[in-house]
């Protein structure tokens, strides 16, 4: 039986999303489709799959991504679906441990991709916030307060990601 769950995760909390998906899979609910804040689950054997999420380097339709997903499939990983730049993968737990990254450098590169997106969004939001905040109508006030919240969230997200990158870089001084 299939059913849909609506839930929103911020880009910088993707690890929590992964954790949640794996908890669902432990209960026997496997992710089969994704959309904007939408997760489609299907009932199955508990703990059959392990899930991972990745922020891709190129669009899902880009040939580079197609060849990447094909490469992963050769190693026994299944591509559940993608939404925007997020790709959802699963692998049977019986086929061994599933990880997308096994060294510090590739983890840093992955975090940097997410950080770069936030860095690009940031000035846009600030500009829109400033334009709305300097004019005085109710509509503008609404816009600017909404944007204000968004800016605070993005800032928190960026700091979170940067702290993670910093930690990994520190680790890298000692070992690979």
């Amino acid at each position, binding site marked *: 039986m299939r059913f849909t769950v609506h839930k929103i995760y911020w880009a910088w909390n993707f690890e929590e999303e992964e954790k949640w998906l794996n908890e669902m899979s432990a209960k026997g609910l496997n992710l089969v489709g994704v959309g904007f804040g939408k997760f489609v689950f299907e009932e199955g054997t508990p703990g059959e799959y392990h899930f991972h999420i990745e922020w891709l*380097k190129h669009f899902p339709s880009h040939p580079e991504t197609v060849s*990447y997903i094909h*490469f992963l499939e050769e190693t026994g990983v299944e591509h559940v679906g993608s939404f925007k730049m997020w790709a959802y993968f699963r692998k049977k737990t019986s086929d061994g441990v599933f990880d997308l990254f096994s060294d510090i*450098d590739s983890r840093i590169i992955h975090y940097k991709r997410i950080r770069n*997106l936030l860095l*690009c969004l940031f000035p846009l939001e600030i500009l829109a916030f400033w334009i709305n905040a300097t004019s005085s109508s109710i509509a*503008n006030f609404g816009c600017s307060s909404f944007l204000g919240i968004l800016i605070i969230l993005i800032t928190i997200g960026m700091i979170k990601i940067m702290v993670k990158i910093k930690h990994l870089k520190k680790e890298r001084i000692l070992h*690979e």
Partner: protein
Amino acid sequence: MVLKIAERFTTKNKKQTTLVGCLFFYLNLLTTIFVDVIIHISANDTTEDDIVVENIVLTEAVYYILLSLFEHMHGYGIMQNVEKLSSGRVRLAAGTLYGAINTLLEKHWIEALPEEKNSRKKEYMITSDGKEAVNYEIKRLRELLENGEKIVGGV
């Protein structure tokens, strides 16, 4: 009269800024939701500075990938071979391996073999540059090992 015009001008201006602000808000929302353009700008991974070849230290993963590719092999084969070579100690994750293969291809340390018609799997092989890097690494590892044994004593 002048005051009146000035007043009219400012109210008109206010309306304009309101409009511009709202427009910007919607534009911004649109870009936030359809982040494709921004994604495209941000998609380029920052690559580290070029490292001088003579002073290179290979990562464990790259060292074992290069060793594996003395025979031609496809991606999954490399993963299995590395695990076998290190008796299960080094486990390469698929994403990391994919990144490493692409970097090695860019550096011309390995090359992709022309694909056979009936097989969809791409195979790779080490190049002479790659062999040179491996030889240098072996020399470096030997030095590390000898110094370690000299000071700590052979195990």
